[in-house]
C-alpha cells in the first residue's frame, strides 16, 4: 500500500499542544507510508485540495488524517478521498484533538501520544479493503410518535410534503401540553385557537393515519425499512361509529374518574371525551371506574348511545406498519414537586402547579375560566408564583434550567391581573431567562404594566395561617428575608423527560441523557437527528423547549424526513460482517446472537450449512465476530486482524522468552 498521512493543526487547537511537524516526520517512518505532511485546517477547502493533490502526485492508495474525532469529519474526508479517485473506505482517522490536544497540556507527551495514534491508524489502514455499498429500497412512510405540538407539526409538514404519516399518541386526544394551556406567550393568544385548527388538519389530512390511546409496542429494521408494531388500547367504544355526541357522558352514573387532562383538579365521567376540541372527538371508557367493567352491571351508556357503539368486550389491538423513518416527539412531563417537603407535600390544597393553574385560567377548565382556589373556591387576591421548583437544583438532581417557566410565569402573572384586576402577584425568581424574540419585553410588561412584584430569591417554606399561606422567602437584592401572606401559591415546576421515554428509547435505539431527554446526534450541527439513522427528534423530548422552538423542530425533523424519503433507494454501510465459507462450520452460533437477525444459514453446493450475512440488514456491531468459534465471520474494517494490529501498534510485544529459559 502507498499511504499518505496528514496531520492537522486545527489552527492552534491541535498545534498548540502537539508538535504536528514532529508527528508528520515520525509518520514517514511507518510501514507503507510514502508521504506525510502537516496542514493548517484539513477540513477546509485548501486542506482537502491538498489531500487530493498529494494522492495524485504520490500515487497514494490510502489516506490517514490525524485531526478531530471521526464522529465529526470521517464522512467529510471519505468524500475527499473519493474525489481523489480512491475507494472511500481506504481511509482512516486518528483523533488527536478531542483525545489528545484538548485534554492534556504537556506538548511532549501529547506529541508522543499523537504519533502512536497515527501509527495505530496506519496499521489499521494497511488491512483495509475497498468496499462498495449495496443499495436497497426505501419505504415511503413515516411514523411520528407523540401528538403534541411538535409531533403535529412534523406530521403535517411530512404529509404536505407528500409522504404517508402514521401518528401515534398515547393519550386519548392529540394536542399534548399545549392543548391544556390557556393563553401562550409571548403574544397571549389563545392556545386552542392556534392549536385547534392544526389538530383538525391532522384529523382530516388524507395522508395521515392517527392512532390515539396507542403506543409503540416494538420496532425492528433499520433506516428506510422499519417494521413497527403499535398497540391500540381497548377503549370499549367503537370509534368507527362514535359520533362524539357526548350523550353517554351526561348519563354515566360513575363520575369520579380521574381527569388527567384537567391535571386532576376535578374528576370526569367514566365514559369521557377529555375536552371539547379533542381530536379525535370520540368517547372512551375508563375500565377502572366503570361500574359495568368492575361489577358487571350498569351499561347505561350502551343504552343511551344513539349509534350503539359501546363494546365492553373490546380488547387491545396490535397494528403493524412499515415505515422508512421515525420522528420521536414525546415531549416532557412535569417534575414531581412533592420532593420539596418544605412546600407542604400536598398538605395545602392551595399550593398548585403551573399546569394546574393553566387549567384554572382556561375557559374549558374545571372552573370555566374563573380563578377559584381549590380549598374553598374563593377568588384569590394575592397570588405567589415560585420559579425554578425542581429546576437548577442539584439537591433534587435537576441541575438544569427548564427553559420556559420564567416566561409562562410572567404570562400567568399577566393573566391573573386580567382575570382579577384587584389582585396582586408576587414572583419569586433566581434569574429571569427570556432570550427569545420579544420575550424580555414580555416579562418587563408583567412587572411594569401589570404590576407583578418580582422578588429575587428562593422560597424556603410555606405554611398555613388562618385561611392563607405564609410564603417565606428571601429578597437577595434587598439582602434579607421577606414574607407574604398568599391566597394561592403557584409552583413553576420544572420539566423532565416524558414518563416512559427510557422504554421507548430502548425500542428505537435512541439514547437518553442522564436526565432522560433524548440525545441528538450533534448539539449544534445535527440537532434533530439521532445516532440511529432514520430516527429523528422534535420538541421537548430532546430537552426543554417552548412552543416556537418545538414547532421549529417539528418542521426541521420533517425536512430531514422528506430529504430521506425523497430517495427511492439508500446505500447501506458496507462495513458489515462477512463470512469466509471455508472456515465456517455452520454451527449457527452467530445466527443466534445477531440482534438484528442479519445472518441466515444456507447450504453450500455440497449441502453443508454455512452462515451468510444479509448485507443491508447487518448493522455492523461485530457481536457475531466475537461469537464465532472459528473466526469465520469478520466485521469489515474491524476484523480481528485489524484490532490486533492496533493493539500491536500500541503495545509492541516485549517478551522474547522461551519456555526453555
Amino acid at each position, binding site marked *: 500500500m502507498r499511504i499518505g498521512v496528514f496531520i492537522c493543526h486545527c489552527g492552534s487547537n491541535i498545534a498548540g499542544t502537539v508538535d504536528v511537524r514532529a508527528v508528520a516526520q515520525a509518520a514517514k517512518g511507518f510501514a507503507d507510508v510514502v508521504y506525510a505532511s502537516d496542514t493548517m485546517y484539513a477540513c477546509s477547502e485548501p486542506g482537502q485540495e491538498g489531500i487530493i493533490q498529494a494522492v495524485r502526485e504520490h500515487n497514494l492508495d490510502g489516506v490517514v488524517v490525524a485531526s478531530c*474525532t*471521526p*464522529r*465529526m469529519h470521517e464522512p467529510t474526508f471519505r468524500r475527499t478521498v473519493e474525489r481523489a479517485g480512491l475507494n472511500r473506505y481506504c481511509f482512516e482517522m486518528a*483523533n488527536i484533538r*478531542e*483525545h*489528545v490536544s*484538548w*485534554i*492534556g497540556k*504537556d506538548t511532549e*507527551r*501529547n506529541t508522543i*501520544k499523537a504519533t*502512536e495514534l497515527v501509527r*495505530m491508524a496506519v496499521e489499521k489502514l494497511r488491512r483495509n479493503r475497498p468496499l462498495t455499498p449495496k443499495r436497497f429500497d426505501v419505504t415511503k412512510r413515516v411514523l411520528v410518535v407523540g401528538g403534541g405540538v411538535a409531533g403535529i407539526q412534523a406530521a403535517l409538514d411530512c404529509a404536505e410534503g407528500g409522504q404517508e404519516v402514521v401518528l401515534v399518541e398515547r393519550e386519548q386526544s392529540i394536542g399534548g401540553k399545549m392543548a391544556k394551556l390557556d393563553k401562550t406567550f409571548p403574544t397571549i393568544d389563545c392556545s386552542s385557537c392556534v392549536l385547534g385548527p392544526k389538530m383538525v388538519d391532522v384529523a382530516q389530512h388524507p395522508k395521515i393515519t392517527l392512532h390515539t390511546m396507542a403506543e409503540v409496542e416494538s420496532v425492528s429494521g433499520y433506516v428506510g425499512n422499519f417494521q413497527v408494531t403499535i398497540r391500540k388500547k381497548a377503549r370499549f367504544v367503537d370509534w368507527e361509529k362514535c359520533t362524539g355526541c357526548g350523550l353517554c357522558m351526561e348519563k354515566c352514573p360513575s363520575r369520579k374518574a380521574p381527569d388527567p387532562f384537567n391535571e386532576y383538579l376535578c374528576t370526569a365521567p367514566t365514559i369521557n371525551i377529555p375536552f371539547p376540541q379533542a381530536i379525535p372527538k370520540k368517547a372512551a371508557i375508563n375500565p377502572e371506574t366503570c361500574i359495568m367493567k368492575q361489577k358487571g352491571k350498569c351499561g347505561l351508556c350502551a343504552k343511551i348511545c344513539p349509534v350503539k357503539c359501546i363494546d365492553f368486550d373490546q380488547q387491545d389491538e396490535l397494528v403493524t406498519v412499515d415505515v422508512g423513518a421515525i420522528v420521536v416527539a414525546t415531549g416532557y412531563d412535569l417534575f414531581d414537586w412533592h420532593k420539596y417537603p418544605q412546600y407542604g407535600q400536598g398538605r395545602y390544597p392551595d399550593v398548585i402547579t403551573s399546569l394546574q393553574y393553566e387549567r384554572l385560567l382556561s375557559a374549558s377548565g374545571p372552573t370555566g375560566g374563573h380563578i377559584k382556589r381549590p380549598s374553598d373556591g374563593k377568588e384569590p387576591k394575592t397570588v405567589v408564583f415560585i420559579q425554578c421548583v425542581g429546576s437548577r437544583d442539584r439537591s433534587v438532581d435537576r441541575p438544569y434550567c427548564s427553559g420556559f417557566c420564567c416566561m409562562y410565569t410572567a404570562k400567568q402573572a399577566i393573566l391573573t391581573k386580567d382575570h382579577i384586576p384587584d389582585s396582586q402577584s408576587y414572583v419569586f425568581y433566581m434569574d429571569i431567562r427570556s432570550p427569545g424574540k420579544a420575550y424580555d419585553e414580555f416579562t418587563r410588561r408583567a412587572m411594569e404594566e401589570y404590576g407583578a412584584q418580582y422578588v429575587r430569591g428562593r422560597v424556603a417554606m410555606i405554611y398555613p395561617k388562618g385561611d392563607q399561606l405564609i410564603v417565606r422567602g428571601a429578597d437577595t437584592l434587598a439582602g434579607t428575608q421577606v414574607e407574604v401572606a398568599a391566597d394561592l401559591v403557584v409552583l413553576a415546576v420544572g420539566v423532565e423527560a416524558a414518563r416512559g421515554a*427510557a422504554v421507548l*428509547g*430502548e425500542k428505537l*435505539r435512541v*439514547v437518553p*441523557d*442522564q436526565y432522560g431527554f433524548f*440525545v441528538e446526534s450533534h448539539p449544534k450541527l445535527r440537532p434533530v437527528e439521532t*445516532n440511529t439513522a432514520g430516527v429523528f427528534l422534535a420538541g421537548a423530548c430532546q430537552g426543554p423547549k417552548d412552543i416556537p422552538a418545538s414547532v421549529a423542530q417539528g418542521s426541521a425533523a420533517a425536512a430531514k424526513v422528506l430529504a430521506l424519503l425523497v430517495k427511492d433507494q439508500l446505500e447501506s454501510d458496507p*462495513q458489515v460482517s462477512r463470512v469466509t465459507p471455508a*472456515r465456517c462450520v455452520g454451527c449457527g*452460533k452467530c445466527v443466534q*446472537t445477531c*440482534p*438484528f437477525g442479519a445472518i441466515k444459514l444456507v447450504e453450500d453446493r455440497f449441502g453443508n450449512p454455512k452462515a451468510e450475512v444479509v448485507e443491508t440488514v447487518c*448493522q455492523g*456491531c*461485530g*457481536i457475531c*465476530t*466475537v*461469537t464465532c*468459534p*472459528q*473466526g469465520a465471520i469478520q*466485521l469489515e474494517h*474491524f476484523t*480481528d*486482524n485489524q*484490532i*490486533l*494490529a*492496533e*493493539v*500491536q501498534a*500500541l*503495545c*509492541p*510485544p*516485549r*517478551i522474547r*522468552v*522461551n519456555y526453555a529459559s
Partner: protein
Amino acid sequence: MSASDSRELRIVGFLCNWCSYGGADTAGVARFAQPTDLRIIRVPCSGRIDPLFIVRALVNGADGVLVSGCHPRDCHYAEGNFYARRRLETLKRFLDATGIDPARFEYTWVSASEGQRWQHVVTEFTRRIHALGPAPLLRHVSDGAWFDAAAPAAAGPACPCHG
C-alpha cells in the same frame, strides 16, 4: 498524587463508537483535563471486544486495559453490551489464573453525554494503574502461536470467554 507527575504508563482503552467514544469526545470538547497515558481503540460496540484483544494487550506489556461501552439498556445495537458484560466478567476471573493482576483490567459504562464521568473514569483508572506500577514481565508465556492473528480461531472453543 497526580498520575501525570510520574512516568507515563501504557494503558489501552477499547471504546464503543456510540457511547463511550462519544463520551471521550465530549470530555475533550469540554476540555476536561485527563492523564495522558490512555490510548483509545475505537470499536463499533462493546460486544465487538474479543477478550483476546485484552489478553493480547496485557501480554504484550500494557500496564492496564480499560473497556467502556454504553450503559446497560442504552446499547446502540440493542444488546451488544450484555454480551460484552458476560464475556468480560469471565475474563476477569480468567486473568487471575494466567498470572495477570485482574485489577489491571476494568470495564465501565459511559454515555456520549457524560464527558465529566469519562474524565473521572480515566483519572481514577490511571491512578489505580499507577498505584499498581508497571506490569511485571510475563515470563511463563512464550510468544508462540498464541499471538498469531488467527489466534481467535485457535483459542476458539476452548477459550472460556467465548460464546
